């Protein structure tokens, strides 16, 4: 029964309708979480004894960085699914994720810069983590550019998919770079395997923002995937009926 509902989900028309219904609900939850996270992070959480109030950038910077990596993995996995099993939904989700991932990567880099200037005295440094995160941005751009350059969108999805998968090697480099090399960027504080070395009053808003960003991604990728699906399915009857009704 589970497999049957999975199959149903992969049907473009069913996906379009279901996603359309889910988006407002998830969107509302996302906004609520963002507001809670912002209030907690900006008002309730105390100032850091070393960094004062500038550390509050962490509530945007870290979730953005996490999203940049997470979305790339989703993109790579969906590309693989699309390449292996030729499931249109997987291809659509993969390419719809790319601009979102690029946006979060840009935010991670920019907020990191804005944090780095007052704290460590420099807008930019070519250490392992920053360099590989910048590479990630270029990889996203490459995927988007390749997809847009190919006319036939089925071929385009597959080509962009291969590129996304090839670029996956960058992800562990980004994640482990602060452990492998002595870098200016600080070491892992949350994703270590023992207890996180960040204070709980700061950890909670961080996690709230992380969840909020994930929900934002879900909402946005559903929205973009619906539009992309319409485009890919434009010659089918269900799309033509849908358009007439609007």
């Amino acid at each position: 029964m589970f497999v049957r509902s999975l199959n149903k989900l992969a049907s473009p028309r069913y996906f379009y309708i279901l996603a359309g219904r889910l988006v407002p609900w998830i969107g509302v939850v996302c906004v609520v979480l963002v507001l809670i996270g912002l209030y907690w992070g900006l008002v309730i959480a105390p100032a850091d004894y070393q960094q004062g109030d500038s550390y509050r950038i962490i509530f945007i910077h870290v979730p953005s960085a996490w999203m940049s990596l997470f979305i790339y993995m989703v993109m790579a996995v969906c590309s693989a699914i699309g390449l292996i099993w030729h499931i249109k939904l997987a291809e659509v989700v993969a390419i719809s994720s790319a601009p979102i991932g690029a946006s979060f990567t840009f935010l991670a880099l920019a907020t990191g810069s804005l944090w780095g200037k007052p704290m460590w005295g420099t807008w930019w440094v070519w250490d392992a983590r920053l360099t590989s995160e910048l590479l990630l941005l270029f990889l996203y751009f490459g995927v988007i550019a390749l997809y847009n350059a190919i006319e036939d969108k089925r071929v385009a999805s597959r080509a962009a998919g291969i590129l996304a998968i090839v670029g996956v090697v960058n992800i562990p480099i980004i994640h482990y770079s602060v452990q492998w090399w002595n870098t200016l960027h600080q070491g892992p504080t949350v994703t270590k395997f023992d207890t996180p070395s960040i204070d709980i009053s700061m950890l909670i808003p961080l996690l709230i923002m992380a969840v909020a960003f994930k929900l934002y991604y879900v909402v946005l990728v559903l929205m973009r995937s619906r539009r992309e699906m319409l485009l890919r399915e434009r010659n089918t009857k269900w799309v033509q009926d849908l358009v007439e009704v609007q």
Partner: protein
Amino acid sequence: MSLSEFFHMGGYAFYVWASYGLALVVLIANVLVSVWQHKKLIAYFQGKGRRARRTL
């Protein structure tokens, strides 16, 4: 903390508010652009449909 302290952010106001502001702009712009693209596509399909019916 008081409202003025809130805006001042311990002297780091520019950096903190630039970060949050940038995030707000980027994330909201993404949503608006996606909605606009969707609407544009549907309008385009409707235009095509109308032209096709007219030529019949």
